[in-house]
């Protein structure tokens, strides 16, 4: 399923690149974005077609995870190349902040830890 999808994306981009050679180097004809010159770019090896593929891949994964199709372009456009690389590697296991944990929950967890470590024993039955 995923590989068919990837292949169709690849074919699409390849077709676009062949029909329109300008597609690969979209940003500013010839001028290099400052991003290619910052410290992290030194060991980042995504550019041109490969970068486009990675963007297309992350885009379809975000859509699969329920992102509104109308917002996909903006979300992808906001990402720097290094952020894109991070996201494509860790989309499914990076921390996703979302929960509200009531303070009572925190206290409970702390008590469990203290219990397990052996500092307190409030959860044990008294002899």
């Amino acid at each position, binding site marked *: 399923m995923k590989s068919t999808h990837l292949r169709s994306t690849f074919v699409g981009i390849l077709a676009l690149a062949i029909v329109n050679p300008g597609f690969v180097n979209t940003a500013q004809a010839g001028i290099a974005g400052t991003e290619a010159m910052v410290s992290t770019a030194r060991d980042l090896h995504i550019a041109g077609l490969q970068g486009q593929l990675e963007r297309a891949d992350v885009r379809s994964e975000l859509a699969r995870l329920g992102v509104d199709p109308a917002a996909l372009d903006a979300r992808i456009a906001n990402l*720097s190349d290094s952020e894109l690389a991070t996201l494509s590697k860790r989309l499914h296991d990076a*921390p996703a902040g979302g929960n509200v944990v009531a303070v009572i929950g925190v206290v409970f967890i702390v008590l469990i830890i203290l219990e397990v470590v052996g500092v307190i024993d409030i959860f044990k039955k008294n002899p």
Partner: protein
Amino acid sequence: MNVRRRAGVASLAACLVVAMGGCATQPALVESPLGHVELVDTPFHPQRRYQCGPASLATVLGASGVAVTPGGLEPLVYLPGRKGSLQVEMQAAPRSYGRLSYRIEPELPAVVSELDAGRPVLVLHNYGLPGWPRWHYAVVIGHNAQADQLILRSGMERREVWSARNFMRAWDNGDRWALVVLQPGELPKAPDKDRYLEAAAAFENVAAPHDAWLAFDAAARAWPAAPVAWIGRGTAKYRERNFHAAAADYEVALRLEPGHAGARNNLAMTLLEQGCARAARQQLDMIDVAGLNEAMREAVIDSSRQVDAKLGLDKVPYGISTENCIGSSTHHESQSQGSVSTRTAPL
């Protein structure tokens, strides 16, 4: 049952005494010359289920002058399939609103000094256990050095007071991730040069040229010897089609680092835009393509192609100059040299 509860209360009390005793002997974590700071004007957006990402991002953006609701941010940062928001996207979203995001040092004094400078700090907490993480975004809006406390907008709580020690526990488990949102031209309290330039370069991709110029201009003032700061300024001017100003900034970068391929490539493209294809060719010939990263190599190859196309189109025999560019180039040179001294001075 009764006995059990009493035993529980007793051990809890004992525990508290131990904890308090512990506090008294340990040094305070929050230290600030201002003693007590609370950014009370920071907006508050109580979060809906799983929406602490959009809510806390709306809070820091609001403090930075961007009126946006969590609902407005949801399409940009919320990931339904993960029931939460990822750090990378939290970091990227402010760019849609003309703001830079900057990750501060993972140390409590960095949080405190941002608060002292009037900026709330977005943090990621982890309230879970090893192997059972519970991630939560919140915004630090104040500190109290005497009481060793931090004040947060978090979840449904408008004002949540945390002991510094508990805050650190939850922050440590979240790998001490903390973010501030900056207006173009605004620098964080203790900026790291490389990290700031990276933030500005990521901003450049989506920012209006003038906003990008402001961000890099602030960098050029803070680090006048950093070529990338001048290149970013130049590229903003290039995008505004102010090629004269762009060339001047690229030349400053090249004087700082004559071998800088990025500055050399972009200067060549600026010259081409000014109708100086031959001068552009000379600049490109000076670039050592080996050892460039892929993005740079592609840019240089593309520039070469464009310059050669122009040279071929004009049927200019290589080596015979019909351009009046050497003079204009030295003109740039002398002019920008003059302006460097004024720019690198106080500002």
